[in-house]
């Protein structure tokens, strides 16, 4: 700080006996591996650290900012952040319980299921340090699932905050739909390898997938009902072939989510969106309306049932849009089960998404690195 060279001087510090937990930590990663509970990168890195051998680590440090060591004679020293920060999971649980008059223990008991979600640079804190601390404290649930993402590159280059080669959330959220951001980051998620964000891909994915496929299916169905059925969903049977496709998704997508495969879960739902558009095209309700009004009613009822279920299935991924559909269809309860809705008056139909002008691609890209 003053520029003079420092000297080396002995001082007392506390150490955490990490080595004592070696066997337990090894068992934990072996189980995670055999049951596929952690992402591959977490299993790999943790095994490597264990193979290299654990060392006891300093638990206190001479730092200015942090939690004071609560022991006499150690004034001015702080608890090292690697113990202090991960402990936040437990302290936040306790604080939540206190402020909302709830019980925190059921969420930390052996019967609970636990997930830890972070980037790959954080793996050892969640796969080694935190489980060791939890075992040291005793009677607290260890991590079941570790969802540790790979990195996101920007326009094929490593993200750099100092060089402003980054996309800042405060800028982006003011201009783009939160569900467009969520959709892109899930469908291109860095689950198994690094993923790239490019403005071209982002804007094209919004315009073609969200607006072009999903938004269009919802809009054309509801607009049709508004125009030709006075805005009332026709009361009739729906097509059973579509029913099977929709109801199967609750199980398959649910399983994917529980296993941390979000991309595959969302892809399966968009597969349904595409086949629903195809169904609409093949049924040709505009023709059915003239030739067989009953069949037309059936087509529109089927499409509306699909939309109602999409509002359920997409809610974890695209919560704002799911809410908008629920509002348009006047849906009450949200559930993770097939939903069959009755005839009802729909609210004024508005498009779910607006087209983003492709000129934004260059505009946004030019801001990078400056």
């Amino acid at each position, binding site marked *: 700080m003053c520029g003079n060279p*420092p000297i080396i001087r002995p001082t007392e510090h506390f*150490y955490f006996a990490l080595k004592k937990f070696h066997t337990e930590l090894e068992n934990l990663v072996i189980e995670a591996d055999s049951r596929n509970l952690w992402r591959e990168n977490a299993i790999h890195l943790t095994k490597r650290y264990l193979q290299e051998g654990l060392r006891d680590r300093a638990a206190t440090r001479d730092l200015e900012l942090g939690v004071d060591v609560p022991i006499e004679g150690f004034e001015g020293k702080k608890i090292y952040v690697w113990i202090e920060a991960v402990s936040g999971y437990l302290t*936040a649980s306790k604080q939540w319980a*206190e402020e909302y008059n709830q019980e925190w223990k059921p969420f930390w008991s052996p019967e609970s299921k636990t997930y830890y979600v*972070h980037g790959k640079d954080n793996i050892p804190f969640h796969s080694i340090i935190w489980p060791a601390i939890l075992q040291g404290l005793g009677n607290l649930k260890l991590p079941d699932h570790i969802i540790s993402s790979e990195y996101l590159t920007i326009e094929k280059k490593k993200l750099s905050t100092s060089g402003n080669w980054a996309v800042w959330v405060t800028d982006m959220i003011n201009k783009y739909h939160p569900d467009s951001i*969520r959709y892109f980051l899930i469908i291109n998620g860095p689950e198994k390898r690094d993923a790239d*964000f490019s403005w071209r891909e982002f804007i094209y994915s919004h315009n073609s997938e969200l607006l072009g496929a999903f938004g269009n299916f919802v809009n054309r169905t509801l607009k049709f009902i508004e125009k030709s059925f006075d805005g009332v969903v026709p009361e009739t049977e729906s097509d059973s072939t579509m029913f099977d496709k929709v109801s199967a998704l609750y199980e398959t997508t649910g399983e994917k989510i529980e296993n*941390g495969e979000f991309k595959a879960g969302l892809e399966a739902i968009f597969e349904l969106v595409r086949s629903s558009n195809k169904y609409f095209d093949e049924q040709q309700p505009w023709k059915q309306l003239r030739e067989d009004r009953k069949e037309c009613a059936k087509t529109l009822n089927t499409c509306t049932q699909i939309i109602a279920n999409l509002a359920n299935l997409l809610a974890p991924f695209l*919560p704002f849009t799911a809410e908008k559909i629920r509002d348009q269809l006047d849906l009450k309860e949200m559930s993770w089960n097939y939903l069959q809705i009755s005839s009802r008056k729909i609210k004024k139909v508005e498009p779910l998404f607006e087209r983003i002008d492709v000129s934004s691609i260059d505009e946004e890209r030019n801001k990078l690195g400056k």
Partner: protein
Amino acid sequence: MNIFIGGAWPYANGSMHLGHVASLLPGDILARYYRQKGEKVLYVSGSDCNGTPIAIRAKQEGVTPNEIADRYHKEFTDCFTQLGFSYDFYSRTNGDFHHKEVQQIFKTLLEKGYIYKNTVEQTYCETDQQFLPDRYVEGTCPVCGNAARGISVIIVQPFSTQ
């Protein structure tokens, strides 16, 4: 069933970028999905408000470390809300509750013998009369010989904190 979901704690010394969101978003999908299924969910996270980078930044800007942490904690909270993150509790590590509980955790580990005292050699500045936070020490890495800063100069740890 009771489901606990812990999202990583963003560090409050700089703005949030898309890389953060990409790694944290899975937590929100899980929380929303399990709630929708009717399970009991506790989804927590918070801002990491301690550590030397915040202290350094505060000195550079001539403000208190708390002002830095407050600024980014507020930004994070706004970003998360606008992106639809459904935390049951979003905390911060410079709060009193967290400090007291962490001290309790430290004491418990000490009582059970998992934390012990050790004498170490550390860099000390005779001019300023204090032991130096790792980040302020510049030198060469004892392993590879390249210019290094902080803990790698003094003691090579198996992994760093940042």
